[in-house]
C-alpha cells in the first residue's frame, strides 16, 4: 500500500485530492509539488499525500530514439544534426522537450524523398546554438568536409539563434566546396503541428541537391507555408526573434527559392567544384565592441585588451565617439586590427564622408563596405588565421564569399 512504496517518475498512481480519487502518471516532483498527468490528459501540480501505486513504470528511458542512419535510394545527401528548435520534440507522456530527428518521419512526409535521395544522418552534437563557440565551427567544418566527400550536398539542422554566425564561419572556411552546404532551422519547434521545420527541411534537401557551391540558409520567405528562401550565409541575419521569416538576406534578395517542390535560383551564385578546399585556421583573439553613448574609454580599453583584432559596431556610416580614438590608435600601432561596421545593419560604412570617419581612419580603423558586423567578426578570425598581416586590409575589403555587396540596389531595403 501507499505507506510502503514511494512512487517513481512514470508510475501510474491512484491518489486522493480534495476528497476525490484520481488516476494519473507521476511526471516530476519537487520538495512540495508533484506533477501528475491525469488520464484525461491534463497535467496537475499538487501536493501528493495519499496515493497508491497501480503500475510501476517499466522504462523511463528518455534516450533519443533515433531510427536508421541512412534512408532512401537516390542522390546521397548528408544530414548533420545539432541542437535547436528544429530537432526539438515533446514527449507527449511527460511533456518534456527532447532532441530528435526521425529520418523515417522526415522522408515519409515527403514520399518522393526516398526515391530521390539517400539521406545519411550524422549527429554532430546536441548543442544549443547560443552555446556554440568558434571551436565548434571548426569541428563542424571538418565534419562537413568529410561528408561532402561522400555526399552531393550537406544539410545542417541548426538552432536559429547563431545560425548566421555558423553559416558565415563555414562560408569562409570552405574556400571551395564540392556541393551545397545548407543550414536549416525552425522558429516553431517540430513538436507543434504548425512547425515550420517540415517545409524548411523539405526545401533544404531540395537546395542541397543542386550545384550551389556556397553556404546557404533555408528558411521561410514570409509567414505563409509556401516559399522557402535560400539565403547566402555571409549576408544572412536573424532579424526577428519569433517569426518564421526571421532570416533576411541583408541588402540583397535571396539567392534561390523553393516552392511546390521545385528549386529556382534568382541570383547568380558560385557553382560547386570537384574538390573541397578548406582551411579551419581561425584566430580566436578577436572581439566585437558595440559602441554607444556613455561607453567609457576605460571600458573600450578593457575590451581592446589582448585582442589581435576587433570589430567595432559603430553608428551610421561607421562612427564612434572621438574620445575612444587614442586608445585604439595606440593598440593599432602595436599591431591590433580594427574594423568598423554599422549598427544600422543595412547600408555601407564609409570613413571618408564625415570628419569623424576621417579621424577614425587616422587612428588606423578601416572600413570594409557593407559587411555585416557578425560576418565581419567571423571574417576577421578567418583572415587573421590564414593570411599574412600585411594582406589584412586587402583581404578584409575583398568580397570573398558574397559578404560584401559591391552594389546595393534600391529595392532591397524594407
Amino acid at each position: 500500500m501507499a505507506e510502503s512504496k514511494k512512487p517513481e517518475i512514470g508510475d501510474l498512481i491512484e491518489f486522493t485530492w480534495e476528497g476525490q480519487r484520481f488516476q494519473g502518471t507521476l511526471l516530476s516532483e519537487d520538495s512540495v509539488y508533484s506533477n501528475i498527468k491525469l488520464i484525461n490528459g491534463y497535467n496537475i501540480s499538487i501536493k501528493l499525500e495519499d496515493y497508491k501505486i497501480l503500475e510501476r513504470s517499466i522504462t523511463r528511458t528518455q534516450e533519443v530514439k533515433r531510427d536508421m542512419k541512412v534512408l532512401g535510394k537516390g542522390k546521397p545527401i548528408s544530414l548533420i544534426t545539432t541542437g535547436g528548435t528544429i530537432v526539438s520534440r515533446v514527449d507527449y507522456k511527460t511533456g518534456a522537450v527532447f532532441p530528435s530527428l526521425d529520418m523515417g518521419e522526415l522522408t515519409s512526409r515527403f514520399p518522393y524523398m526516398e526515391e530521390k535521395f539517400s539521406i545519411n544522418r550524422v549527429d554532430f552534437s546536441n548543442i544549443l546554438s547560443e552555446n556554440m563557440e568558434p571551436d565548434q565551427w571548426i569541428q563542424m567544418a571538418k565534419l562537413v568536409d568529410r561528408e561532402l566527400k561522400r555526399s552531393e550536398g550537406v544539410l545542417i539542422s541548426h538552432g536559429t539563434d547563431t545560425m548566421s554566425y555558423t553559416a558565415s564561419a563555414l562560408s569562409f572556411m570552405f574556400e571551395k566546396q564540392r556541393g551545397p552546404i545548407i543550414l536549416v532551422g525552425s522558429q516553431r519547434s517540430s513538436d507543434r503541428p504548425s512547425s515550420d521545420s517540415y517545409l524548411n527541411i523539405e526545401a533544404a534537401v531540395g537546395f542541397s541537391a543542386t550545384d550551389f557551391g556556397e553556404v546557404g540558409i533555408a528558411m521561410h520567405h514570409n509567414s505563409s507555408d509556401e516559399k522557402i528562401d535560400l539565403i547566402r550565409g555571409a549576408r544572412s541575419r536573424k532579424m526577428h526573434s519569433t517569426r518564421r521569416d526571421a532570416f533576411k538576406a541583408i541588402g540583397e534578395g535571396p539567392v534561390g527559392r523553393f516552392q511546390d517542390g521545385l528549386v529556382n535560383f534568382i541570383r547568380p551564385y558560385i557553382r560547386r567544384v570537384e574538390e573541397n578546399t578548406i582551411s579551419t585556421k581561425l584566430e580566436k583573439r578577436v572581439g566585437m565592441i558595440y559602441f554607444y553613448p556613455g561607453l567609457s574609454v576605460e571600458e573600450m580599453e578593457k575590451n581592446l585588451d589582448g585582442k589581435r583584432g576587433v570589430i567595432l559596431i559603430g553608428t551610421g556610416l561607421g562612427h564612434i565617439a572621438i574620445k575612444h580614438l587614442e586608445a585604439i590608435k595606440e593598440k593599432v600601432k602595436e599591431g591590433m586590427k580594427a574594423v568598423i561596421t554599422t549598427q544600422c545593419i543595412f547600408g555601407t560604412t564609409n570613413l571618408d564622408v564625415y570628419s569623424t570617419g576621417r579621424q577614425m581612419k587616422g587612428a588606423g580603423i578601416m572600413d570594409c563596405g557593407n559587411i555585416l558586423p557578425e560576418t565581419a567578426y567571423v571574417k576577421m578570425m578567418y583572415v587573421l588565421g590564414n593570411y599574412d598581416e600585411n594582406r589584412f586590409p586587402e583581404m578584409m575589403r575583398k568580397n570573398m564569399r558574397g559578404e560584401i555587396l559591391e552594389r546595393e540596389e534600391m529595392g532591397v531595403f524594407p
Partner: protein
Amino acid sequence: MNELPGNTKIGLEVHMQLNVGKLFCKCGSEGEAEKMGFTRKLHSSSGESGSQDISSVFEESRNRTFKYIIYSNSCLIEADEQPPTQINDRALKATLSMAMAFHSSILERISVMRKVVIDGSNTSGFQRTSLIAMGGTIKGDLAEAGITAISLEEDSCRKIEEEGNMVVYSLDRLGIPLIEISTSPDMKTAEEAISIAKEIGNRLRVMGLLKKGADAIRQDVNFSMGYGRVEIKGVSKLSAIRDILLNESERQQKLSEAMEAVMKRGGTEKLDFKDISSMFLGSNSKMIRKGLEEGKLIYATILKNFKGLLKANGYRVGREIADALKQVGIKGVIHYDELPAYGITVGDRDEISERMELKENDSFLMLILGRDELDIARFTIEERIRKLLSMDFSETRAVLEDNSTRYMRPLSGSSRMYPETDIPIIKVHEDLLQEASRNSPGSMEETIGRISEEYGISGQDAETIINDQKVMYLRELANKHNGKMISRLITQTVPEMEKKYGREMEWNTIVGIIKYCTENSLGRYSMEKGLHMLFSGIPMNEILSHKKLMPLSEDEIRKMMKTRGIDKNEGMSRTMDILTSSTEGVIDPSIVARLINTKKNKDSN
C-alpha cells in the same frame, strides 16, 4: 423510438465565451478583417501512436492548405508567430468564480496544456487549455450532477469557407477565452440534461462577462447507451437536446443490430478493390462520366455480408462509410443499396455484382477516385467497419440541421495533450481567490438581492445589470457610496450614448474612464463628459492626458460668468451653453444654478 434506453448516461460540457479580450495576448474581443492573410499547412506530430491518432493521420493525409484572414483584433500570437503572453487575469478570475459557485476544488497551481487539433481551426495546431478546478456539484430543477472539470481554454478560428483543399478561417475568434464546465454523466433523460444545462447557463449569465452573439454559450453533449461514449458537438439550442439524443440512440440501436447481423453471417473480409472503369466507358451516368473525364477511375469492392444493411429497413451503414470518407476529402461513394441511381441502372448493378462475384449476403461499394486516393479510401473504410464491428461507437459527432448527427473525428485522447512549454505554471494566489470569491455567481434571485443591497440600487436595475453582463464591471467600479451613480451609468448613460452615437465601445475603455474619474474623485459630469469624448472617437490617452475631465471650482465658474458678462436673466440652459463653450473643463450645472440664484438674490437685494 420515443424514449431513451434505460441505461442512458448523459453528460454535458458547457462553454462560455468571455468578453474580456483574448486569453493569451492583448488583443480585443472584436475586430475587423484586414486585407492581408497567410496560408499554412499543419502536420501531425510523431511520438504518438495507435488508433487515437488516426484523426491526425487522416487530417494530414488530406494535405489541406489553411488560409487565415488577419483581423484587427489579432497579432503575431494568433498568427503563431510569437509565444503567448501571460494568461488574461480577468478570464482567470471569472473561471475561479465559476468554480466557487459549484464548490469545485481549485488547483493551487495551474498548468496550461496544448490539445492537438489539426483541422486548421488553431493556427498552432493545438488549442491551449488549462484545468482550473475539479469536483463539485450542480443542482438543476430535475436533477443533480457532479462537476468533473472546469477549464479555461482558447476559442478557435471561425471557419469562413472550404473549397477543395483550401479551408479559410478568420482570426478574430481565435484566442477568445472559453470557460468549459464538464459534468459527470449523471443525467438519464434529455429533460434532466436540459435542466442542468439551464442552471449552468444561468450561473454563467449571472456572473457576467458573457460575450455577445448567438454562440456565446455552446454545449457539447456526451451520450452513452452501452456502445461507448459519443461526444455531440455544438448543441446551441437546449430545446433540441431531446430530439438529438433520440436520433442518436436510434442510430446506435440500428447500427448495433446491423453489426450483429454481419457477425451472425460470419463476419466480413478485407476489402479488395478492383478497377472496373472499363465497364463504364459508354456510361450514361453524369457522375461517372465526369469522374472519368477528370482522370479518376471507378473502383469497386465487395462488402462481405453487408447485404441490406447499407441503406434499407432503417439500417444506414452506407452513410457511416460515406461520412468517414468525407472526413478525408473523398466524395463519390455509391453502394449497392442505393442502386439504381446516379444514372447507374439495375443492369449495371447486376453486371458489377457478377464481375465482383458477389455472394448472397454480400453488398458492394463503388468509388470514383484518383489513383492516389485509393490507399487512404481503403484504410478509411476498413477502419470504419472495424470500429463499428467492435460495438464501441465512441467518437465525436457534429449536430446537423435536422438534429441528426454526423461523424466528425475520433474522440480526442489524452495522448494528444501536452504542456504549453511557453507558459510557466500559474500560481493561484490568495488575493486572486478572494477577488474571485466576491464575484462568484449565486442563483439569479440571490444575486439580484445581494447586488441591490450591496450597492444600494433597485432590484430592477440589478437585474438589468446582470442580464447585460455588466455585473463584473459594477463590482469593479462601485462601492456603497456611488453605487447608484455607477448603476445609472451602466443602465442608462452608456446605452443612451450607444444609441446617440450609433456605436458600441469596448467596455475595457469605458471602465478605464470611469475608474479614472472615481480615482481622481471626479463626479458624474466628468464621467459623462469623458464618455462623450470616448464615443466621439477621441482616443483614451487623449481623454485622460488632458485636464478636460477636471471640474471647475465654484470660484472659477463665478469668474467665468463675470468675464463673459452673463446676466442673471440669461437662463440656466443658455448660461450652460456659454460656459461650456468657454472652457475645456467640466462644469457642474448645480453650481451654476446656485450661482445664478445667488446672483439673482444679490441683484434683487
